[in-house]
C-alpha cells in the first residue's frame, strides 16, 4: 500500500513500479467501496487519502480545484461557505472522492449545467504510467503550474488531443490523477421543490427531456418508490412506511432563483413547468403523498452527501448496481425491461433511479438491488442476466465494472485495438490497474 502525499511522490512510486513491473491500483475514496474499486491481490494499492487538500475555491470564476483524496463530505460544505454548489451525484456517500466520481462520469443532479458527459470535470493533473506528469486543458501551461496565471478551467487539449477523455472512464488504467478542477455553480438563493407523480416511468422521462430542452429545472431526478423511500428516510421503519404510501414513480424537480430577481425567475420557470407537465397530463405539486412534511428534508438531501453511518444504499447489507446510459427515446423501454428482469426479486429490493443528463439528451439509469450477504448469489445472477439482456437491447454500459468489460468489448475488436494503442502510449509497461477494462 502506497500513500503518496505529493505529485512527485506519486511519480516516484510509478517509476519504481515501472522498474519492478508491479501493478498499481488507485484508491481515492474511503470505504465502503462499490463498483469502481476492487482488490487485485497481485497489485499494490496507491491510496490517495493523504492527497486530500482543497487547493482552491474561486467564487468569482466558479470553480474549485481538489486533490484526488478530497471527498464530497469535505467539499460540499466548503463550497457552500463560498456561495457555491457542485453539480454532484445524487446522495453520494460522504467519503466518495470527488475526483473519482467525476472521472467515472457519474450521474449529476443538475443536468442543465452538464454540457458534456465529462462535465463538471474541467482539468486534471495526471501521472502517466511512465511516471511523467501531465496537466490537461488550460492547466497544461505555459510553464510550471506554480507560475501559470490561468485558472486552469478550459477542459480541452492541449493540442488536438482530448487528453482528459482518455482519463475519464479509465478507472486509472491510463494514469493516476492527482488533482482535478471542477466547475461549480452559484448556490441558489431561493428554490421551489416540485414533485410529479406517475404510475409509469416513461411519461416522466419524456417530461424530463422536454423540461430540459427548455432548460427549465435545476435539479431533476426520477425515482421509483423503493429508491425514493430508501434515499429519503432515516431508518428502515420510515423507509417501509414511505414505500407503501408514495406513488410508483416520482420526479423531483427543483426550480431555483439566483442572486438577482430570484422570485421572478422561479415564478416564470414554474409556469413553464406547469405548462409542460400539463401537456403530458401531469401535475406538479409542492407536497408528496406518503412523504408529507418531509419536503424540507428532501430539499436538504439534494444538496448534500449521505453522512449517515450506514450509506443509504447499504441498509440491507449489500447493493448490486446495474448502471447504464440510454438516449431519451429508450429510457422508458429499458426501464420497463429492467423491471421485468428483476421481477424474480422481491419488489422492495429493487430501487430504480432515472437521471436525465447532458441537458436532457441522455439518461443514466441506475438499478440498486438491495440485499443481504446471504442473498448475494441470487442477486448477482439476476443482475448479470439482466445486464446481458439490457446490453442486447441496446443499453449502453459506458462504465463497465466487474464482469461487464468482457461483454461490452467483445463486439468491437477495432475499438479494443485502438484502446490498447492508447494504453500503450500512456502506460507502456501495463502497470496501471492491470486486469481492468480490456487491458
Amino acid at each position, binding site marked *: 500500500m502506497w500513500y503518496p502525499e505529493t505529485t512527485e511522490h506519486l511519480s516516484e512510486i510509478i517509476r519504481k513500479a515501472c522498474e519492478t513491473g508491479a501493478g498499481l491500483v488507485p484508491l481515492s475514496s474511503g470505504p465502503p467501496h462499490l463498483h469502481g474499486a476492487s482488490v487485485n491481490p497481485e497489485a499494490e494499492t496507491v491510496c490517495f487519502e493523504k492527497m486530500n487538500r482543497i487547493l482552491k475555491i474561486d467564487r468569482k470564476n466558479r470553480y474549485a480545484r481538489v486533490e484526488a483524496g478530497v471527498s464530497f463530505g469535505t467539499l460540499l460544505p466548503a463550497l457552500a461557505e463560498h456561495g457555491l454548489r457542485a453539480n454532484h451525484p445524487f446522495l453520494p456517500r460522504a467519503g466518495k472522492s470527488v475526483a473519482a466520481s467525476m472521472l467515472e462520469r457519474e450521474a449529476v443532479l443538475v443536468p442543465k449545467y452538464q454540457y458534456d458527459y465529462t462535465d463538471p470535470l474541467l482539468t486534471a493533473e495526471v501521472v502517466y504510467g511512465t511516471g511523467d506528469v501531465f496537466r490537461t486543458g488550460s492547466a497544461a501551461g505555459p510553464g510550471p503550474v506554480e507560475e501559470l496565471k490561468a485558472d486552469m478551467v478550459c477542459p480541452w487539449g492541449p493540442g488536438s488531443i482530448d487528453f482528459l477523455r482518455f482519463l475519464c472512464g479509465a478507472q486509472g488504467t491510463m494514469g493516476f490523477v492527482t488533482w482535478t478542477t471542477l466547475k461549480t455553480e452559484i448556490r441558489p438563493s431561493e428554490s421551489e421543490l416540485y414533485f410529479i407523480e406517475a404510475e409509469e416511468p416513461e411519461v416522466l422521462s419524456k417530461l424530463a427531456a422536454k423540461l430540459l430542452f427548455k432548460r427549465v429545472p435545476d435539479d431533476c431526478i426520477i425515482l421509483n418508490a423503493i429508491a425514493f423511500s430508501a434515499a429519503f428516510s432515516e431508518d428502515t421503519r420510515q423507509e417501509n412506511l414511505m414505500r407503501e404510501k408514495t406513488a410508483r414513480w416520482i420526479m423531483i424537480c427543483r426550480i431555483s432563483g439566483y442572486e438577482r430577481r430570484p422570485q421572478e425567475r422561479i415564478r416564470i420557470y414554474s409556469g413553464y413547468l406547469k405548462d409542460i407537465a400539463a401537456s403530458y397530463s401531469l401535475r406538479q405539486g409542492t407536497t408528496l403523498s406518503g412523504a408529507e412534511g418531509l419536503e424540507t428534508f428532501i430539499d436538504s438531501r439534494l444538496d448534500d452527501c449521505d453522512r449517515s453511518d450506514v450509506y443509504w444504499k447499504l441498509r440491507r447489507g449489500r447493493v448490486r448496481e446495474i448502471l447504464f446510459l440510454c438516449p431519451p427515446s429508450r429510457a422508458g423501454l429499458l426501464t420497463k425491461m429492467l423491471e421485468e428482469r428483476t421481477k424474480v426479486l422481491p419488489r422492495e429490493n429493487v430501487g430504480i433511479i432515472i437521471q436525465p443528463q447532458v441537458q436532457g439528451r441522455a439518461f443514466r439509469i441506475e438499478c440498486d438491488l438491495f440485499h443481504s450477504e446471504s442473498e448475494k448469489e441470487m442477486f448477482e445472477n439476476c443482475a448479470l442476466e439482466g445486464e446481458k439482456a439490457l446490453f442486447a437491447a441496446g443499453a449502453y454500459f*459506458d462504465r463497465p465494472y466487474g464482469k461487464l468489460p468482457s461483454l461490452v468489448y467483445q463486439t468491437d475488436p477495432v475499438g479494443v485495438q485502438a484502446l490498447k*494503442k492508447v494504453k*500503450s502510449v500512456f502506460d507502456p509497461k501495463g502497470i496501471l490497474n492491470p486486469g481492468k477494462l480490456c487491458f
Partner: protein
Amino acid sequence: MSMTLEAYKELEAVVGERNISNKPWVLAGNRARTPEYPFEYHSPDAIILPGCTEEVQEIVRICNRHRICFVVTVSGASVDAYANRGDTVLIDLRRMNRIVEINEEDRYAVIEPGVRHVQLYPELRKKGFTYVTAAVGPGGSVLANYTSTSGDNHNQHGASRANRYLLGVEMVTPEGEILRTGSLQTGSGWFCPDGPGPGLRGLIKGFFGSHGQMGIITRAAIALNPCKGPREIRTEGHSPHQHIYLDSECSKVRVFNYKSLDDVREAMLRIGEAEIGSTVMKFFYLTLAVMMTDSANEFHKLWPRIRRELPMPLVVHLATESPEEMAYEEGILNDIVEETGGVRIAPDLENWWNEHMDFFMVVSVLQRTLRLGGGWMPIKLGADSVSHIVEVGKSISEFIYDYTDTGKIFDAPENFQIVPMEYGHFAHIELLFMYDRTDPNSGKNVAEFRKTSRYTDLKHHYHAETLGCLNETTELLGPLYCNYHLWMRALKNAFDPENLANPILKE
C-alpha cells in the same frame, strides 16, 4: 516522386473515372495560396472524391500500400486542408453529403462531412432545433467545424464550444480500419461520445481538431439545442442588403459600449451568474465596421465613427420563450449594465444587429473581413476563465501600439473578441488583425507581430496561445505545455506509424 500509374489506377477502380483526377487544371483548384497565410501549398498528385465510408477505407488502404500521403478536405476553407508536401492525394469528401438522421427525440443529427451549414441549419430549424454554428460561410462543412477546427462560436455564452456537442463518430483510421467511438462502439446508437471506458473521441479533437492526422471522419452525430425563434427565417431585400425579422418580443439585441475591460469582465461574469442571454461577447470593432458595410470604401467611411464610438462593444442577444421571460432578462441586464458602467450605443448602429440577428446570418457576413485587401489573421485563440482571458486581452496594449502606430498592421488596437461560454464559466479570445498584403514587409511584420503576441503571453504565463495539431508551432511550444507534443506524436505514431495521414510537417 509522384504517384505511380498503378496506384492511380487502383484508386480509380474504387471511385470510378469520374471521381478522381490528376489533370493539372483540376489540381490547380486545390493548391492555390490563400491570402491570409503566407505559404504556398504543394500540388496534390491527385484529387479523389469518395462516396462512402467503405470507399474512404479502400483509398486509405491503397495509400498505405503505396506509401502515399493523404490529406482530407471538404470545403477547402481551412488552411490545413491542402497538400503540405509532395506524394499526396487529396481526399475530398464533398460527395459524402447526406444528413443521415435527424433524431428529434434524442436531439442529435448524424451527418456526413459534405453537409454544409447552409444545408443543415434550415433543416434543423424546421424542426425547432439549432446547433452551435461556426463563423464560416454557408459552404463550410459542419462536421469539419466540429471535428477539425476550433469549434468556437458566437452563441457559446448560452451554449458551449462545438467540443461539447460532438457525439458518436465513425472514422477511418490512418491504417484503414473503421473505428466507431462512444455508444456507437457497442451498437447502442449515436448519442454518447464516451466509453465504454475511456473515450476514444479523445483522438479526434482536443482544443483544436487534428485535421485528419488521426484519421478521416466519415460520419458524426452532433447534439442539438432548441431554436428560440421561427421555424423559417423571413428575409427581405436582395443581396447584399437582406434583413431578417424575428419576434421582437422574444428576441432583442442590445449593444453597450464600455470603457475598460475590467468592466466588461464584470458584466460578463454577472450576466453569466444570472444565466441570462443567449449571446454575450465583447466583439471586434473593426470587424463590426466591415460587416456593417458593403464595400471596403464604405468601411473606410464608417470606420472613424466606429473607432470613436465603439471601441469596446459588448453585444448581448436576449432570446426567450416568452415576453415575460424577456422582461425578466432585460431587467437583470439593465441592472448589470448600470452597475458596470456600460452605455447603450446609438440606435442606428444597434439596429444593424436586430436586422441581422440570426447568428448564422451574422456570421455568414464575417467573410467581409477579407474585403480589406485580404491581409488578415486571427491569433491567440486560447481559452480559460473569463477573468484570465480578460487579462490576456488587457496585455494586448503592451505590444500592439508598436505595430499599429508604425503602420505595420491596421490601426485597430481593440480588434479582439472575447466570447464567454457556458454562462461565463470560460471564454475564448481572438485577436484579429489586418495587414497590408501589398506592403513588401508585410510577411516579416506579421511574423514579428505573432511572435510578440506569443511572447507576451508566455512572459506573463498566460494561457492564450493557439495549440493545434502537430506542426512546427507545436514543436516549439510543446516543452512549455507539459510536452504535449511528445504525447501527441506518440499517439500519432501508434495509429499512423508511416506518418501518411496529413503528415507532420517537421520530423
